[in-house]
């Protein structure tokens, strides 16, 4: 369980960093789509498949909109605006601040962090594969639209 969580967490962190380190805006938004997909995997790791499907559905709309905006803008405004050193400094400082706030509280005790239960009725569980199928179909459609726009 923890090994799977660690692998998915590392992949998700890499995808989040790729959003900023990509040289082109289009690559950045594809990294964002990858981040959302891996975030959905993380929901499944936490035994919440219905919320994972809902998250995937909702983010399909957002990512599709961002992809279209990026296709419209990637030739006009190249990504030269991110200062990586200050980004790393801000990230480390924010993480230290969060860790300092919660390290002394009772929230971090292992007894108070139970991994969520499935909490899903059997009626909805039957429909989950169809949710995933439709969501990945929408993702594929938006990525295919990007490819078509790039060819033209």
């Amino acid at each position, binding site marked *: 369980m923890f090994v799977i969580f660690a692998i998915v967490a590392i992949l998700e*962190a890499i995808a989040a960093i790729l959003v900023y380190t990509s040289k082109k805006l289009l690559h*950045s938004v594809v990294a964002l789509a990858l981040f959302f997909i891996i975030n959905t995997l993380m929901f499944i790791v936490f035994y919440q498949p219905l919320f994972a499907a809902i998250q995937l559905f909702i983010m399909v709309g*957002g990512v599709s909109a961002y992809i279209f905006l990026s296709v419209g803008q990637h030739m006009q405004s190249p990504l030269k605006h991110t200062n990586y050193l*200050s980004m790393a400094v801000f990230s480390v400082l924010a993480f230290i601040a969060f860790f300092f706030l919660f390290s002394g509280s009772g929230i971090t005790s*292992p007894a108070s962090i139970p991994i969520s239960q499935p909490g899903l009725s059997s009626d909805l569980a039957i429909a989950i594969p169809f949710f995933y199928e439709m969501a990945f179909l929408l993702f594929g459609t938006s990525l295919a639209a990007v490819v078509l726009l790039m060819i033209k």
Partner: protein
Amino acid sequence: MIYYMLFPFVLFSIGIGGLAASRHFLVMVFSVEIMLSAAALLSVSMLMPVNLALLLFAIWAIATTEAITAIVLYRYISRNDMDLDIRRLSEYKY
């Protein structure tokens, strides 16, 4: 077990760093999306036994609204032939 709570903090910190360090309009919107995803992940990993599904749906509603707002702002910016570098926004007159 503390790693399940620390990982959303890592993601949120990456989002904060990106928001503070980037000057591109869309990349800043992306970083807010990453921060919202980190909040949703934290609520699922820790708070679901308290049955805070409504909080999760509220986070997703905010993320979706942000995408719609980005489209509206993008239309305004592109119509006025403006750059997406936010450092240049003060050069324009509204």
